[in-house]
């Protein structure tokens, strides 16, 4: 390691870094703007000036830009030399001449990098008295506010948006003194990572519009480490909450990125950043609801819908406990349905309550089958599930049947970086350091190969070398052929047209040639054959390379893979439940159904769900939102959302991660497991299984119980400290030391202050008392360091700039028993397509496909009206035109939607948006068949029965 001298002190530093990031790693404070740890240096802002001395004799030295200076072994530098300080002061004064006097009315104020750097450079008084240039702002959509006056022209926004995230609708316009960062015309920023501009912009040009609607300063937000619940990537987030204005209950106010080296790094997608508002939405359940006996005059409810009224929580819990007691005396049967979007703790508590025999996964057969496939693939030693940095460094990417931009968005961003690896290799061969971002991007190398096979590809089409849009069956066939090509096996049964054979050969050559090939697939196609083919391909590639194949498999929901661990194979799927109940109907024993945070209408076709409800006497739901299932429940308990509770999710890699409660949910909201434990507490008699529940007082008690019960999940008891953990006798503070308004915020109700709520689950306080330093514990999610108020201060808590967090990575891999995957070489199915029908292929949308984020106000603005995609050829065949309404006839009814032309939709198929409001109930039918015909009369889109 090279040794350098800075201001007379000798340091050992990493020679691959530039001088600026080395100095920051050493903990020195140097102001900067245009440099970003993930995006490298361009040397545009001139703010990070230092002095370099020729040798120890040199007294004057020369000015250098530290971000553009490679480390020289034995180099002598100075940060604090008078000339450097004066130069930096001059630069910031220059940058600030046009900056408006806006800080009090700017959402960035208090966590503004420009404020921090201005202070650091000692420029605290404005001498400039001339006129300031002004700009008009643009409307940039429901997520981002634009205030162009504040710009200091560091170019970070366009570098992130265009070069890093692949957007093309934000540009630097104008010239010299008048540079303008905006769109050519007003309109929504179309890239799905636009929210990162809020954190990338060093000042307040781009601010979070949803946060602005219920704005407070950073120091007034209470926070805790959390996990994003809007997909299965498992990005770490730091949600911020504070009491709302006119009642005592806190509301969730925003999401910011929480650095995790192996998952999200510095960036989040817009669904994760702006999807949080579902927690405060009108559909949120915050009361205990029960059946209303009397009719409502003028009610618009369907005849099967149950009308609810608020009841006393104690009555509801008592009612549940009576049912549990009856079940123990064999007078009643209780069935539990789990959920892939709820924590392992909640699922396990329900399983313990109803017994493993009566616990069902809440997934349909197909969903569970593909998840088990993912699980068994990842249990093979020849397959390795890569972290985000590993994805970013792979030199050939093959994506099979997964539209990752819409199903695992953060991974699509990583793949975009992987596309640059050929360029980076060229740079290295020319001895250009990789942090020299502008120079590296000058190299006109081709993209690293990215090949896609599947039904739909979004966002990555500009960097994909080859795309093949086919039905899942053909995708599987292609993948099998590829595997056979790689393993040198010629199968007689794989008949393919010549151009496909040629593509198979080319793809195989690319994969074989690549040093670090990566395969990406997932469950979104709901096609086991594809995953089996992917398994075969991975195995073939691994046998050839003699190293495990990197295979990233995307699952659909935050805890899909966690839930899978609780079941063997496809046991416990919902079809099995319906069948069991039907078979045992003659037993004539009353049945209660407890549904945990799950909307069954998204899982099973309508008729099966109706049948299920008709087979049970009592439906009890624990959930956060009023879903269609809630309308059929006899009793509804308000469950806490992710940001309000503690629990564990297992992400796509099999990484178990714990999230912590940021605030206490309003009203009677509490964790689902607490409702269940409350009910058991009321039981007069308890058998052995139930008395276990009575012992559970803390969330970690359940985590430990899971670790004892399931070998696979035994890491759960070491995921984090339990509630008794203390540092220097103190808890970790959720509120910053500057948290304001403590003695006034509740004063209109009671002038005397009430003590803060005690957290029974985590060693954290709901107050500003306790540990504030994120270096002492990663449970502190308020990323702040003296003089560094913005999120940029994260480098103070990393081993080195862009490296692991101090204290090591959070989360632990679940320990799945290793066993080789079975041989699926000859499992190609022959699927008979019903005549005159079309296969419904699920297509995904970043905004619209995920259940929870759809209820977020900002996101709901962007959700499209129901539509289906169809090939132009089929369009003519069916005699329909673009934009017309069609009827999609399925086994659960007729859906009227708009029809859209899509050249890439395979023939004989229609692309149906998964989970889109209005078409949610179609989700369970895919990839089944439907018939399509022009709508008889022109009426609005909707569902008919």
């Amino acid at each position: 390691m090279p040794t350098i001298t800075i201001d007379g002190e000798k340091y050992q530093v990493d020679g691959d870094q530039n001088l600026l990031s080395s100095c920051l790693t050493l903990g020195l404070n140097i102001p900067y703007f245009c440099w970003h740890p993930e995006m490298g240096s361009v040397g545009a802002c001139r703010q990070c000036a230092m002095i370099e001395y020729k040798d120890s004799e040199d007294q004057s030295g020369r000015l250098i830009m530290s971000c553009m200076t490679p480390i020289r072994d034995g180099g002598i530098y100075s940060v604090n030399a008078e000339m450097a300080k004066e130069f930096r002061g001059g630069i910031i004064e220059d940058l600030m001449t046009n900056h408006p006097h806006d800080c009090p009315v700017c959402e960035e104020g208090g966590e503004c990098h420009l404020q921090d750097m201005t202070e650091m450079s000692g420029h605290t008084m404005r001498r400039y008295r001339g006129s300031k240039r002004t700009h008009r702002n643009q409307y940039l959509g429901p997520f981002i506010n634009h205030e162009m006056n504040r710009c200091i022209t560091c170019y970070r926004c366009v570098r992130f948006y265009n070069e890093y995230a692949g957007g093309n609708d934000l540009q630097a316009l104008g010239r010299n003194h008048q540079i303008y960062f905006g769109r050519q015309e007003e309109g929504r920023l179309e890239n799905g990572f636009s929210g990162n501009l809020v954190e990338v912009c060093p000042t307040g040009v781009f601010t979070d519009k949803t946060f602005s609607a219920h704005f407070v300063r950073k120091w007034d937000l209470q926070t805790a480490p959390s996990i994003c619940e809007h997909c299965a990537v498992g990005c770490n987030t730091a949600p911020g909450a504070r009491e709302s204005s006119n009642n005592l209950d806190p509301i969730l106010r925003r999401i910011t990125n929480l650095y995790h080296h192996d998952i999200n790094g510095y960036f989040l997608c817009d669904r994760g950043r702006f999807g949080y508002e579902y927690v405060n939405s009108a559909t949120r359940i915050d009361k205990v609801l029960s059946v209303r006996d009397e009719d409502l005059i003028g009610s618009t409810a369907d005849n099967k819908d149950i009308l609810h009224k608020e009841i006393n929580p104690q009555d509801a819990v008592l009612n549940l406990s009576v049912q549990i007691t009856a079940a123990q005396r064999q007078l009643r049967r209780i069935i539990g349905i789990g959920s892939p979007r709820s924590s392992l703790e909640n699922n396990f508590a329900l399983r313990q309550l109803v017994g493993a025999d009566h616990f069902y996964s809440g997934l349909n057969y197909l969903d569970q089958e593909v998840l088990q496939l993912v699980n068994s693939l990842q249990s093979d030693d020849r397959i390795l599930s890569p972290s985000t940095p590993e994805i970013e460094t792979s030199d050939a990417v093959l994506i099979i049947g997964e539209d990752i931009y819409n199903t695992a968005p953060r991974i699509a961003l990583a793949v975009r970086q992987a596309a640059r690896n050929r360029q980076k290799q060229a740079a290295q061969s020319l001895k250009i350091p990789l942090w020299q971002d502008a120079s590296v991007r000058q190299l006109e190398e081709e993209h690293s190969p990215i090949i896609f096979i599947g039904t739909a590809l979004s966002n990555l089409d500009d960097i994909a070398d080859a795309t093949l849009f086919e039905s899942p069956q053909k995708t599987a066939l292609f993948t099998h052929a590829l595997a056979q090509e790689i393993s040198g096996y010629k199968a007689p049964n794989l008949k393919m047209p010549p151009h496909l054979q040629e593509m198979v050969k080319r793809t195989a050559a690319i994969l074989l040639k690549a040093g670090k090939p990566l395969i990406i697939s997932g469950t979104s196609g709901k096609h086991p054959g594809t995953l089996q083919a992917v398994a075969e391909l991975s195995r073939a590639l691994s046998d050839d390379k003699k190293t495990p194949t990197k295979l990233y498999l995307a699952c659909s929901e935050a805890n899909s893979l966690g839930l899978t661990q609780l079941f063997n194979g496809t046991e416990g799927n919902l079809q099995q439940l319906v069948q069991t109940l039907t078979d045992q109907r003659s037993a004539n024993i009353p049945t209660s159904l407890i549904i945990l945070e799950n909307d069954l209408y998204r899982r099973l076709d309508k008729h099966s769900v109706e049948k299920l409800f008709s087979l049970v006497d009592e439906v009890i739901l624990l959930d956060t939102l009023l879903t269609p299932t809630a309308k059929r429940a006899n009793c509804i308990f308000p469950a806490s959302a992710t940001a309000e509770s503690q629990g564990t999710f297992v992400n796509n890699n099999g990484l178990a991660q714990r999230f912590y409660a940021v605030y206490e949910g309003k009203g009677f909201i509490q964790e689902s497991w607490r409702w269940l434990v409350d009910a058991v507490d009321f039981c007069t008699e308890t058998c052995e299984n139930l008395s276990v529940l009575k012992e559970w007082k803390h969330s970690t008690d359940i985590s430990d119980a899971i670790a004892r019960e399931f070998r696979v999940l035994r890491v759960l008891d070491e995921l984090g400290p339990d509630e008794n953990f203390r540092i220097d006798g103190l808890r970790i503070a959720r509120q910053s030391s500057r948290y304001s308004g403590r003695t006034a915020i509740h004063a209109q109700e009671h002038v005397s202050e009430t003590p803060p709520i005690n957290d029974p689950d985590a060693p954290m306080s709901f107050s500003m008392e306790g540990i504030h330093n994120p270096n002492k514990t990663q449970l502190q999610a308020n990323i702040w360091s003296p003089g560094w108020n913005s999120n940029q201060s994260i480098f103070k808590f990393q081993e080195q700039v862009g490296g692991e967090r101090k204290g090591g990575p959070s989360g632990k891999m679940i320990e799945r028993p290793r066993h080789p995957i079975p041989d699926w070489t000859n499992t190609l199915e022959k699927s008979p397509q019903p005549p005159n029908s079309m296969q419904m292929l699920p297509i995904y949308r970043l905004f619209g496909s995920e259940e929870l984020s759809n209820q977020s106000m900002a996101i709901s603005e962007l959700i499209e009206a129901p539509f289906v995609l169809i090939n132009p050829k089929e369009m003519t065949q069916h005699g329909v035109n673009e934009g017309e309404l069609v009827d999609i006839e399925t086994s659960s009814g007729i859906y009227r939607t708009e029809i859209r032309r899509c050249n890439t939709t395979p023939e004989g198929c229609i692309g149906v948006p998964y989970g889109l409001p209005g078409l949610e109930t179609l989700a369970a039918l895919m990839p089944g068949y439907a018939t399509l015909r022009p709508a008889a009369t022109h009426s609005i889109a909707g569902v008919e029965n």
Partner: protein
Amino acid sequence: MIASQIRSMWLVFKHLFRRNVTVQYPEEKPYLAPRYRGRIILSRDPNGDERCVACNLCAVACPPDCISLQKTEDPDGRWRPEYFRINFSRCIMCGLCEDACPTYAIQLTPDFEMCEYDRQNMVYEKEDLLIDGPGKYHDYSFYQVAGKAIAGKDKGEADNEAEPINIKSLNL
């Protein structure tokens, strides 16, 4: 020893002929300078609009944390407090809020006569705090020096501001 006691008695005796320092409060009220730190008010700018822009700086400066407010935004872009609450039963009249205020909205006044039988009555809401005038600073209007556009003050119309740049022109 004796000399000292005689001297003390002489000094006390001399005070018989001095003017009284104490006044007969409340019948008679002493002079308090305008910058005396008493009851807190929220002022208005010369146009009569609320000066407070809900920046939260008073709240964070407040040592006993007795100020609480919530930002809201008018359709024209002006920031305002949705509610603004001071718990005077906690206030120590230190004046740090006034120091922190970037818009001269929050000001301390020479009124200190705040007695209540019920502590709850010491909680003042925005309606109780807002006065009709500009207080100690007659001419200051924050939005006139800030870059944010609001109704009646477009981009480029604040003090020391150039016309907004037309990015579609050649701008030579």
